[in-house]
């Protein structure tokens, strides 16, 4: 019996055979991936901005070098992901255009401000920690280029989380003021980090299709729970507290229970009403516009050089005859 292309496609997915760019795929699969991968790429790129804010004010040369290296990694992550999206038939310029026009989403977490140096530690430990939770299962996602990009990303993320924790650990052993700063940063970043996993499962019913296509392998709530369990243990080492009076080990479930997330805040930030949405987009657009002359100059130089080469080879050719 003949099987339809759709059925063959699903069979491949069920057998854990990766889908490569030139393989047949349902249009909806392509569109879903373009959106997800490009939004992921935008997040890496915009994610550089809150941290870039502190490069010139890092407390030591060591911390400055680490922060620079981390931010440089994030630029690389953006590039790996944009490249993966391009294999699906969307151009890089088109994706930039979507971002700059305000049509594209990126992770809401980057619309919060970085107020003190301790935020650099909290971002590494909590924000990168949450990102890793999301990203590790994506290393096995069904689209080959996305999976390969994520393997590369995950290898690099581990240092991001470790440097963040180390930085907070130093503060947690410091003066009273440093301890206060550390706790304050944790207080501000904790809830937005829990929102990074997306709305509760009963409100995001469309993950069913993504699960069936094995783009996504765990639900939002499953990943969020894993994250809470991990951080609730790690924070003990810092002798700090998570800002949640309801956080409690549940012996029966073998998981931590946690309090209610303010989803209204989440939807507001997603809609563009977060504390830094406008600033992030403006900064990003300015960087792009300010860089225009560099891009133009490099293009002009490349054209000129290849013309020269062409002329030279023509004259060699003429001499031979």
């Amino acid at each position, binding site marked *: 019996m003949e099987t339809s292309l759709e059925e063959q496609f699903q069979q491949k997915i069920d057998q854990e055979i990766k889908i490569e760019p030139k393989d047949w795929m349902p249009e909806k699969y392509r569109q879903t991936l373009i*959106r997800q991968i490009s939004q992921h790429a935008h997040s890496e790129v915009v994610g550089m901005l809150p941290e870039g804010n502190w490069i010139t004010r890092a407390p030591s040369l060591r911390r400055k070098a680490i922060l620079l290296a981390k931010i440089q990694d994030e630029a690389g992550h953006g590039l790996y992901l944009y490249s993966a999206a391009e294999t699906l038939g969307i151009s890089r310029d088109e994706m930039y255009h979507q971002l700059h026009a305000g049509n594209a989403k990126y992770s809401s977490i980057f619309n919060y401000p970085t107020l003190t140096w301790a935020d650099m530690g909290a971002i590494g430990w909590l924000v990168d920690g949450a990102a890793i939770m999301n990203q590790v299962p994506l290393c096995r996602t069904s689209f080959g280029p996305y999976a390969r990009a994520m393997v590369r990303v995950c290898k690099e993320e581990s240092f991001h989380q470790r440097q963040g924790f180390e930085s907070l650990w130093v503060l947690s052993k410091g003066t009273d003021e440093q301890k206060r700063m550390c706790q304050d940063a944790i207080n501000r970043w904790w809830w937005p980090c829990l929102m990074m*996993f*997306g709305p509760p499962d009963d*409100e995001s*019913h*469309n993950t069913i299709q993504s699960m069936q296509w094995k783009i996504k392998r765990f639900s939002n709530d499953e990943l969020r729970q894993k994250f809470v369990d991990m951080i609730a243990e790690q924070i003990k080492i810092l002798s700090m507290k998570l800002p949640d009076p309801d956080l409690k080990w549940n012996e029966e479930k073998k998981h931590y229970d946690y309090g209610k997330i303010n989803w209204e805040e989440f*939807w507001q930030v997603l809609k563009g009403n977060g504390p830094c949405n406008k600033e992030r987009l403006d900064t990003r657009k300015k960087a792009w516009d300010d860089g225009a002359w560099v891009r133009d100059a490099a293009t002009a130089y490349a054209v000129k050089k*290849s013309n020269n080469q062409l002329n030279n080879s023509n004259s060699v050719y003429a001499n031979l005859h």
Partner: protein
Amino acid sequence: MQTFIRKMFYGDYGEEKNTASESSSGNASTNEWPLWEVFIRSKQGLDHKHVGSLHAADAVMALENARDVYTRRGEGVSIWIVESKNIHASSPDETAALFEPANDKIYRHPSFYDLPDELKHM
């Protein structure tokens, strides 16, 4: 409070707008730098292996960017870059026909031959 039912494919990005079809506005500029494929030899004695791609105005810039993006942790001792348009690939639609000649020649594999147990070192 308002209730929201929205699609969420990964994390918290939401999913309004920006699919390729919705956004092929033709609005974006088309003077993109060419795309290059990057191959890296991770150490002496090994083949170059495809690691990814990037945009660059010319070969020199492609090499420098490949170094900055793909070898930040000593992943390579040598880089090749090839402009993507110069790569010719077999078509997945013809996979079955293209590789068919190999599939029915099992005598190319050493295990095809049933030899006496006494025979050593072969």
